[in-house]
């Protein structure tokens, strides 16, 4: 434990005093200020005449103002935080010759990787929590509504999912920093994987779906082909952690949404339900809807860390 605590403190200290953290934090804080401001102005204009709005507070996070909402922003660029915090965590120590010194101290070897991971997760948590708090305060001033207890719970769940999502990318970049001796290689590899999984998988999903169940070129489209196409597209795009994350937070942050499925995949009864009942989902129900995505995301994060852990423990320390 003592080794873990020492490494954890040192790493946390390093993160907070590093320029890269300050630059990143400034960037993200700025963007979230702007998005929440836009969302706030948008809300004030559009909700002005309504007597009773549902969850106006959460809309601060989910309403795209001019460009994108806070939630979308985290989905797109949150991974960058994880990557930046982790891409050189092990191979920098190796390159500077401090790793051998570190593990020749009387600590367990896993204290090094655990301490580094936990310190980075703590940094991510502090970052996200403070951003959400800033937006909340900002929104209170602009929109002038107080969040209900339900909304606070939803925000908390959203925060936990987001922390896991960014930690997944942290785990990926740490894994690369163990695999690759060269810092530039691990940085490029993790960014490449991020771009591939976040942006190209959804393109690939279209291609695969159209190859398996072609729609569009026939004169009349059979409904089962259409459904199959949508199913395949959904399945392939779930390979992307970003899609997983968007689905996991969908009904949590937007209670008016009742399902993560697209309209083609809904059964007739479900469609009627969706159009007839306009009330928001209760918190418990929202959680149930996205539970599979949440579990998958958390499992992915843990698996990713576990792989880095074992690779690091079994690796020859000799450089």
């Amino acid at each position, binding site marked *: 434990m*003592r*080794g873990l*605590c*020492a*490494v954890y*403190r*040192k790493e946390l200290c*390093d993160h907070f*005093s590093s320029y890269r953290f300050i630059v990143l934090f400034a960037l993200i804080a700025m963007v979230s200020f702007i998005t929440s401001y836009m969302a706030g102005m948008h809300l004030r204009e559009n909700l002005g005449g309504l007597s009773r709005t549902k969850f106006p507070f959460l809309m601060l996070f989910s309403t795209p103002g001019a460009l994108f909402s806070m939630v979308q922003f985290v989905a797109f660029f949150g991974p960058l935080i994880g990557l930046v915090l982790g891409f050189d965590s092990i191979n920098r*120590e190796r390159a*500077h*010759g*401090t790793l*051998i*010194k*570190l*593990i*020749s*101290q*009387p*600590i*367990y070897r896993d204290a090094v990787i655990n301490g580094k991971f936990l310190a980075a997760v703590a940094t991510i948590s502090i970052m996200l929590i403070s951003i959400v708090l800033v937006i909340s305060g900002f929104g209170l001033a602009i929109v002038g509504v107080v969040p209900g207890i339900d909304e606070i719970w939803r925000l908390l769940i959203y925060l936990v999912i987001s922390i896991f999502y960014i930690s997944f990318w942290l785990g990926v970049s740490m894994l690369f920093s163990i695999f690759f001796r060269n810092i530039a290689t691990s940085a490029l590899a993790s960014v490449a994987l991020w771009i591939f999984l976040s942006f190209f998988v959804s393109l690939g999903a279209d291609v695969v779906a159209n190859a398996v169940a072609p729609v569009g070129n026939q004169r009349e489209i059979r409904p089962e082909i259409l459904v199959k196409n949508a199913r395949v597209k959904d399945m392939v795009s779930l390979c992307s952690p970003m899609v997983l994350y968007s689905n996991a937070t969908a009904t949590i942050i937007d209670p008016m949404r009742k399902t993560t499925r697209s309209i083609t995949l809904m059964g007739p009864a479900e469609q009627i339900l969706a159009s007839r009942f306009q009330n928001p989902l209760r918190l418990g129900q929202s959680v149930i809807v996205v539970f599979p995505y949440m579990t998958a995301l958390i499992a992915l994060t843990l698996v990713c860390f576990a792989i880095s852990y074992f690779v690091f423990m079994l690796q*020859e*320390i*000799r450089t």
Partner: protein
Amino acid sequence: MGSDIMIETTGLTKKYKNQTAVDHLSFKVKKGQIFGFLGPNGAGKTTTILMLLGLSRPSAGDARVCNLDPLRRPRDVKCLVGYLPENGGFYGDLDAVQSLEYVASLNGIQKHRASEKTHELLELVGLSGEKRKKVSAFSRGMKQRLGFAEVLIKDPKILFLDEPTLGLDPDGALRLMELIESLNRDRDITVLLSSHNLHQVQKISHSVGIMINGRMVAEGSIASLAEEKFGVGEKEYTLEEVYMKYFREV
């Protein structure tokens, strides 16, 4: 007499994919000795040290450090052994005091005790004037002395020094050697000293071992090794002559 032996290996072997780095190595180092661990580059000295610390898993054979198995109880061994690696690095953004305090915290030394020891050791290695200077601004000699202080903060019983004088100026190397000698004398610390500076090794070591291609080809006091190779004579051979003789024969 088991407690008298600080380091002991029997048939220690380390194989990488297609080459044998350490080949059935057996040697002993007695308590209170300075053992000169000699050999050409790539002979397997560093690999042996890593196995003695439990940082590398032997392919075969057995190692004992203070009667502990470094594979089974690496943490206990690392509590007793201070290791100064060759080309060991530093955190450039910390200053001397912070570096030492970090090592102290890794060793589980209490905070007030750690700062006390930090100042004591910086005094000992002659860095008390540069306490608050960033390590990245240190010269090679200063870094090496700081590394020495880091190793000593845990009050080790044994020191593994891998090329401690590499790249130091003659004066710095001499002072470091004197420091090693005084630590050995005053604190009864056993030292495993790997070095290419045969002249200095000869001056301070009690016995030497010569390792070539993963095998220990000679082990004993310098006088006995000279006797073995050159026969008994009036002339006193230097370690360098003895070493070269062994080296050429292999």
